[in-house]
């Protein structure tokens, strides 16, 4: 029987192809479980998980919490807004205080890239990175590629374009790693001001013409315009961004094929995609949300199996 090659999920960069396959196969089983009348299994009843969110998040936190509860783990939640972090406590002290309460696993979101990696070197608990700054968001990339596999049968050989704010997006980086690892062809598309320098070194192509990108791709993964991360102006106006990089139904109808539309949420309706696209059959946005719980259950289950009594 196989197991993960890692003790923490810090980023897709640290996984291999077999790890991803194992996570997907385990998620298949959990997807069946969460469609039962009683959606809970007792696997993790002796495990305590701390959700440490040093940065606001609603859907990721809900998804992780649901996954943990459906595995019967004990869950404690911590959010930085009302905590002693504000009083000047260091990350390690905060986490060590929480670990003293006999916590086995930490799910952490942190505004600083590499926070999870730093923590994994200093504490014993198993760590799941739920987003670290603009670095990685591995469970999102896993659920995205799992959703592509579910919709198209395979990720390998598929053409995927990631559209939008590549510069500030941890979803983009993790997705590039996950897609490349599974053999997909990847392009990024967005205003040049939001495309990082040297992105080609990751094995992706840059395309600035959205229409060309849509013609080429099987899947368009639309990213949210992250106004809160933009300290300067990267494009003249939201209206101009939408005209250049927003997807609408008319555009999709001119293509001679049906492409899959994805979005990690929350959607700025009318900015990245119009409502008629978001609600169309081509969009698998709600499947991504459902798959998110199954993927997170799989990741937690597989990591927990490596924690010894």
């Amino acid at each position, binding site marked *: *029987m*196989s*197991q*993960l090659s890692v003790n923490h999920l810090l980023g897709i960069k640290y996984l291999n192809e077999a790890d991803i396959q194992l996570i997907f196969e*385990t998620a298949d*089983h959990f997807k*069946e*479980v969460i469609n*039962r*009348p*009683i*959606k*809970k*299994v*007792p*696997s*993790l009843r*002796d495990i305590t998980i701390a959700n440490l969110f040093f940065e606001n998040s609603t859907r990721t936190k809900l998804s992780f919490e649901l996954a943990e509860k459906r*595995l019967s783990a004990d869950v404690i939640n911590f959010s930085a807004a009302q905590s002693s972090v504000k009083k000047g406590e260091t990350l390690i002290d905060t986490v060590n205080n929480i670990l003293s309460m006999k916590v086995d696993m930490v799910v952490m979101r942190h505004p600083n890239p590499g926070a999870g990696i730093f923590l994994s070197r200093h504490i014993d608990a198993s760590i799941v990175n739920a987003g670290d700054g603009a670095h990685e968001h591995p469970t999102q990339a896993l659920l995205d590629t799992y959703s592509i596999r579910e919709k198209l049968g395979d990720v390998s050989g598929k053409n995927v374009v990631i559209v939008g704010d590549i510069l500030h997006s941890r979803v983009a980086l993790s997705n590039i790693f996950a897609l490349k690892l599974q053999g997909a062809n990847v392009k990024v598309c967005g205003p040049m001001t939001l495309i990082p320098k040297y992105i080609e070194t990751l094995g992706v192509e840059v395309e600035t013409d959205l229409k060309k990108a849509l013609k080429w791709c099987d899947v368009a993964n639309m990213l949210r315009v992250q106004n809160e991360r933009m300290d300067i102006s990267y494009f003249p106006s939201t209206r101009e961004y939408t005209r250049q990089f927003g997807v609408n139904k008319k555009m999709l109808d001119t293509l001679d094929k049906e492409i899959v539309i994805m979005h990690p949420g929350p959607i700025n309706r009318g900015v990245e995609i119009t409502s008629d696209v978001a609600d169309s059959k081509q969009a698998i946005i709600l499947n991504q949300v459902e798959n998110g719980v199954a993927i997170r259950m799989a990741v937690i*289950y*597989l990591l*927990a*199996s*490596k*924690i*010894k*009594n």
Partner: protein
Amino acid sequence: MSQKVLLSSKDIHIILHRLACQLIENHLDFKNTVLIGIQPRGKFLADRLIKILQEEYQVKDIQLGYLDITFYRDDFRRGDKTLEANKTQIDFLVEDKKIVFIDDVLYTGRSIRAALTAIQSFGRPAEIELLTLIDRRFSRHLPIQPDYRGRQVDAINEEKVKVMWKENEGEDVIYLVSN
């Protein structure tokens, strides 16, 4: 390592027919009964019994499901390796149904304990029976006994009962393996 044949293909053939007949005696047309093979190895026995019931005794429309118990086991994190799940496939309601659990070997009873918990995720059955091909008596950790048994075997803990099926391993035979 030595192994001796506990049951030959012919023995298994006779036992399977006897078990099928016992099921018919208790459940007649199987209108309110469903058969559940416990994954992974109970599946083969369940498939075989269904085949006999349908082809040789003309019992029609028997509902058959497979139940995986991996996430309900009490030895998660005790072994060296991750417990890998199998497919659960139950496409019908078990509410108020009579269920027959089917597994190849009954040993400590822990798998059946897990199955009893797992099946509750699908509803509240009217009653549950247990059918096993091999009953390793004197090895139980829990107060669980079969309602239908193919053969009772006295084996010590170091010995292993290995059930091979024609569909999977090329022949029907049951070995008692000792180190």
